[in-house]
């Protein structure tokens, strides 16, 4: 019944600053008019001065504010400019320099939300006024606040053991900080460990990767946790508590020497869908590849004869160190970390989704990953490029770009690596088989150091390039010479005619896409995903490795398709961000928190299970609830839910929002109603 909104602070001295942002705002909004209006109409709302300026965010603009605060004893500042997400901090800092509590400043957006989105100048100007008066009413109820300081736990969790994760882990570990590196597979290495050569330098993938894997594996500051998955994350920046499920290896890592005898003796062969992309076999007890880190094998329980039939135990019999342990169970390990780096990588687009390309139906249509394995010396064919029959060397090879990429039926985006990868393939085919190679592309994208040179080189080698999206791959021969071949039907857009090109082997450069489970992972770590399910950066340009969630960073292909150099540099970038936090020892957080007035709390317990961060505890003895400010994330859900109005929230209090509503409604769009409303101020 009593009134939340009385004007106890009617004495505020408010300074209003309207930004032109060059012509960004002034082009549509009549900035001088807004300024004048604020000065006159909002006078009795505490506005003592209103200024407009070309670029408020410029140092001169900021100095203007600082000067006014001192000279005119401003107690509140409202800046009408761009989105708070861009410059809130800028203006808060300006106030701070002028010894005004930074939280007594309000930034209202008349650019992103007015000038950039509206065309009618009058309407835009009116809206700018309304938005401004909303800010003025709101700022009257701001309270001076102090940012919350949170200590940073020096350990870091890195999720994903691909090249990005490895890089991030090493950087942090080398700086002398503890890192937990978690990998879902038995070994770190990721996709890169499956490649043969890397473009454009063509140096052997394994040769450059293995040393990094090894040093990650042996690093005193890196706790390597493969065959493991993160199951729960609680806490907040600086103080995360992470639960990791260590899947049963059935191998005692303290005893295992990685000699590999168990793998030799294991009678059970399994098609290796992961590492060999289905082209080769592994055993039921295995390490994915010889250079695996760690060297310890795992037993593939669903495929292990002993686990399925109850007899066998060959590995156990032959293990020289009795390292096999069939009774191992999954373990849950809990670690405390201050920061988290997600480097969970990508999945390959499944070309089966494009039936007319025939993958899975036509034997000699291969995916890029399959082809990597074919060409890999350590792969199933020891590096021999042969057809599915395992012996025939192809005479004509067609490489199709943009499979599942740049295609509105699948993924709109460009997968970034396919062009270079396809060129690499073309080169390798030529080099190893001398076969005729066709590359079918939409347009060639070779925008990085030494990339285009490589393209030129492949051109000179005589690879044939056909510009046009391939319509279909078929084995239905229609013309002489097509029998027994795969025919690639394509419109050559350079010559402007349909062509049918018979080949022996087709390689599909399937695009990259986000991990099948990236949405769940995002939810687990409290970050968000784009429409394509790539993780979203805090800012796509200016803060590409941070997320909206403090202390959770993203790097590599989990944020979108990237080549190796970019992934590696993002890994380093994320590491650098983490290290700054750690070195600072503590970080400051927005003081947006809820708190409960215990005298008013009735202990009804409505709020008790509304908090996903378990920040609300109930004291049965006093029959009241309490908010733990450290756990509170400031969403305000409990504030809105409390039936007794006993919970209040800083930064977004009822008073602030209520009066902002009033301010916004001060000026209605229709002239007539405008007058009506203004009486409220008489």
């Amino acid at each position: 019944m009593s009134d939340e909104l009385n004007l106890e602070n009617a004495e505020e001295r408010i300074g209003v600053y309207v930004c032109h942002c060059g012509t960004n705002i002034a082009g549509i909004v009549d900035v001088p008019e807004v300024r004048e209006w604020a000065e006159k109409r909002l006078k009795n709302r505490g506005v003592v001065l209103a200024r407009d300026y070309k670029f408020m965010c410029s140092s001169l603009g900021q100095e203007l504010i600082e000067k006014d605060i001192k000279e005119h004893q401003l107690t509140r500042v409202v800046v009408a400019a761009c989105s708070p997400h861009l410059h809130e901090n800028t203006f808060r800092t300006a106030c701070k320099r002028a010894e005004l509590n930074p939280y007594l400043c309000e930034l209202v957006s008349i650019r992103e939300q007015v000038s950039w989105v509206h065309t009618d100048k009058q309407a835009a100007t009116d809206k700018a006024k309304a938005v401004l008066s909303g800010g003025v009413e709101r700022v009257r109820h701001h309270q001076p606040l102090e940012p919350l300081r949170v200590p940073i736990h020096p350990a870091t969790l890195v999720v994903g053991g691909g090249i990005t994760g490895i890089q991030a882990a090493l950087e942090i570990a080398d700086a002398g900080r503890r890192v937990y590196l978690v990998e879902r597979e038995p070994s770190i290495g990721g996709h890169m460990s499956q490649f043969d050569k890397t473009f454009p330098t063509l140096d052997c993938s394994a040769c450059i990767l293995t040393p990094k894997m090894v040093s990650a594996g042996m690093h005193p500051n890196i706790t390597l946790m493969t065959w493991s998955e993160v199951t729960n994350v609680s806490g907040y920046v600086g103080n995360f508590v992470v639960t990791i499920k260590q899947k049963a290896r059935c191998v005692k890592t303290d005893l295992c020497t990685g000699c590999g005898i168990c793998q030799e003796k294991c009678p059970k062969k399994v098609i290796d869908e992961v590492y060999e992309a289905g082209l080769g076999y592994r055993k039921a007890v295995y390490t994915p590849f010889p250079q695996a880190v760690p060297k310890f094998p795992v037993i593939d329980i669903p495929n292990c004869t002993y686990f399925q039939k109850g007899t066998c135990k060959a590995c156990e019999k032959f293990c020289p160190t009795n390292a096999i342990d069939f009774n191992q169970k999954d373990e849950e390990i809990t670690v405390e970390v201050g920061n988290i780096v997600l480097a969970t990588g990508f999945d390959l687009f499944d070309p089966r989704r494009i039936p007319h390309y025939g993958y899975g139906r036509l034997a000699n249509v291969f995916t890029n990953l399959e082809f990597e394995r074919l060409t890999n010396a350590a792969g199933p064919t020891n590096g021999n490029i042969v057809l599915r029959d395992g012996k025939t060397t192809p005479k004509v090879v067609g490489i199709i770009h943009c499979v599942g990429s740049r295609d509105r039926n699948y993924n709109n985006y460009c997968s970034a690596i396919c062009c270079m990868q396809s060129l690499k393939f073309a080169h390798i085919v030529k080099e190893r088989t001398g076969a005729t190679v066709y590359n079918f592309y939409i347009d060639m994208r070779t925008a990085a150091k030494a990339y285009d040179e490589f393209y030129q080189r492949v051109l000179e080698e005589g690879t044939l390039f056909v510009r046009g999206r391939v319509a279909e791959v078929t084995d239905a021969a229609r013309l002489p010479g097509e029998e027994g071949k795969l025919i690639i039907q394509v419109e050559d857009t350079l010559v402007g005619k349909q062509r049918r090109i018979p080949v022996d082997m087709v390689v599909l450069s399937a695009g990259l896409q986000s991990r099948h489970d990236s949405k769940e992972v995002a939810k687990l770590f409290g970050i968000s995903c784009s429409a394509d399910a790539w993780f979203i950066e805090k800012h796509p340009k200016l803060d590409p490795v941070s997320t909206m969630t403090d202390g959770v960073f993203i790097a590599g292909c989990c944020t979108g398709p990237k080549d190796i150099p970019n992934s590696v540099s993002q890994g380093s970038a994320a590491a650098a961000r983490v290290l700054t936090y750690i070195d600072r020892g503590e970080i400051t957080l927005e003081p947006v928190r809820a708190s409960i007035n215990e005298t008013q709390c009735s202990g009804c317990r409505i709020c008790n299970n509304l908090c996903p961060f378990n920040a609300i505890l109930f004291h049965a003895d006093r029959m009241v609830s309490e908010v733990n400010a450290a756990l509170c994330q400031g969403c305000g859900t409990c504030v809105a839910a409390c039936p007794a109005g006993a919970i209040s929230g800083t930064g977004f209090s009822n008073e602030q929002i209520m009066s902002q509503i009033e301010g916004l409604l001060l000026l209605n769009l229709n002239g007539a109603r405008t007058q009506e409303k203004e009486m409220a101020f008489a």
Partner: protein
Amino acid sequence: MTDQFEPVIIGFTCNWCSYRAADLAGTARVKYAPNVRLIRMMCSGRLDPTFVMKAISGGADGVLITGCHPGECHYIEQNYKALRRFILLKRTLTQMGIEPGRIKLVWASAAEGVRLATEITKMVEEVRALGPLNWDHHNGHQPLAISHQPEEVAA
């Protein structure tokens, strides 16, 4: 302005998705109707039905509530609370004679600037068709210090 009725709609956005969607619409120069005035909250879970009542009684012709898509809440699940409140609130307001079209809930992720803009323009047209609500006119306008102000003193 033309003499066609220009509704005023108060929009509540969450800091992580819908407000950023609005920013994105801005950076992308997507045009939409100027009738909506946005308020930023940390989360749609902050939405207190009192705010909606306040907006209506203060003269708004409609209220738009926005937040992250279900399952994508920055605070994990708080937008479900917003959804629950919205449904119950809407039923109550309908009993009060307020047309359902005046109160809308729209999910918009940080990536959906265009979607938000389209929804806004759509709603503005719907509310325009419904005509002015003018609540403050028939219930006595509330001045800035609202309650316990004698209305005639206020109006």
